[in-house]
């Protein structure tokens, strides 16, 4: 009832809204013409979206990054359990023969060796095709992610998009193999450190600008370090900040997957 009423109200209001694709709509006549016309002069970055994201609206993006960081940390605090509870049943596969062993609680578990691999209780079959395909595809996904981050100045892309693609590649690894082998590759400690490092890179760039007697996140202060003119220094500063954002987003995606897939135990996952 309320929903229908609000919907009617919105439909009534929408007659006042500008038409689709109207160049003279209020949204397109306030500050956006300034951005479009002056970005190339101010920052020498052709991609206006990247320039607005990391330079004109640098504070906004920094605190968005902090929000993502906080979300990742909050998930760890909410769900992570450090007390290791032995599960009732463990499954092992003897690799040379392909036999699956089921060991109940109280039984003796085999040592970590090359003869036995531990299996998830929810997924027993041996996914040869899935594993091989993912092993082939993941390096290319990661190279593409790095390309998206590094090429964000000249084509659609940037830290957020590249970070998500990078995180997706690690999540794909964790799905195709299992959570334990993903954690062996990228440990929890490493991923949490990366999460903090990204925020540190972003905030540190701002403080570095302050040390050169400019405003916080005014990248033209970095001209002396890079040995270029202030305008190019801005584009270099944007790149550094985008790398920081990419690291944070990648790390938080992986943290969220680790935590949610195993409900905080970091033992068995999807």
């Amino acid at each position, binding site marked *: 009832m309320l929903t229908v009423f609000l919907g009617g109200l919105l439909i009534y209001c929408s007659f006042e809204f500008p038409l689709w694709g109207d160049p003279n709509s209020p949204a397109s006549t306030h500050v956006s013409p300034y951005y479009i016309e002056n970005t*190339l002069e101010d920052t020498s970055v052709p991609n206006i979206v990247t320039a607005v994201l990391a330079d004109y609206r640098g504070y906004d993006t920094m605190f968005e990054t902090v929000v993502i960081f906080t*979300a990742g940390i909050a998930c760890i605090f909410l769900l992570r359990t450090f007390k290791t509870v032995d599960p009732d049943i463990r499954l092992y596969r003897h690799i040379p023969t392909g036999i699956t062993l089921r060991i109940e609680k109280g039984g003796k578990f085999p040592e970590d060796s090359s003869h036995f691999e531990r299996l998830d209780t929810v997924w027993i079959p041996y996914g040869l095709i899935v594993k091989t395909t993912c092993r082939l595809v993941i390096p290319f996904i990661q190279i593409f992610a790095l390309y998206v981050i590094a090429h964000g100045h000249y084509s659609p892309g940037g830290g957020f998009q590249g970070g998500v693609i990078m995180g997706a590649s690690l999540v794909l690894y964790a799905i195709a193999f299992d959570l334990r082998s993903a954690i062996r590759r990228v440990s929890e400690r490493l991923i949490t450190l990366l999460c903090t490092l990204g925020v540190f890179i972003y905030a540190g760039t701002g403080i570095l600008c302050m040390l050169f007697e400019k405003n916080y996140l005014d990248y033209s202060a970095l001209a002396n370090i890079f040995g270029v003119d202030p305008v190019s220094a801005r584009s270099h500063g944007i790149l550094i900040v985008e790398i920081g954002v990419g690291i944070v987003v990648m790390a938080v995606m992986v943290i969220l997957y680790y935590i*949610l897939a195993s409900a905080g135990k970091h033992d068995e996952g999807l």
Partner: protein
Amino acid sequence: MMADGAIEILISRINYWVYIALMMIGLYGIIIKKNIMKKIIGVSILQTAVILFFVSIGAKRDATIPIIVHTHDSGRTAIRAADFINPLPHVLMLTAIVVAVATLGVALSLIIKIYREYNTLEEDEILPQLRENKL
């Protein structure tokens, strides 16, 4: 004549109709549904509606994506704002999408916590348990 006018209104504001429909679906999910998981799906649909609204505002007729092509006389030809779509909504929504994913993660971990505590996600089964614990 009347029918033509109505169709014209319908087509020229189609982005608003889609956004209103999505927003109402989301609101319905948040208000009516008793299951917390379904409420969160409603919140996500609402976020999608807002993102769609913002991005559709940025569109301009006969304009291209906001990336300035490097030409040989770059700097001499003036850049006209009408030739590029509005970059601002894209910037805002770019960050909003990623933040939405991160906050969705927090919501899901809260849901796991609630399920461990009460063994259910139905609101009308959780509330009696809450009252019992209080008394």
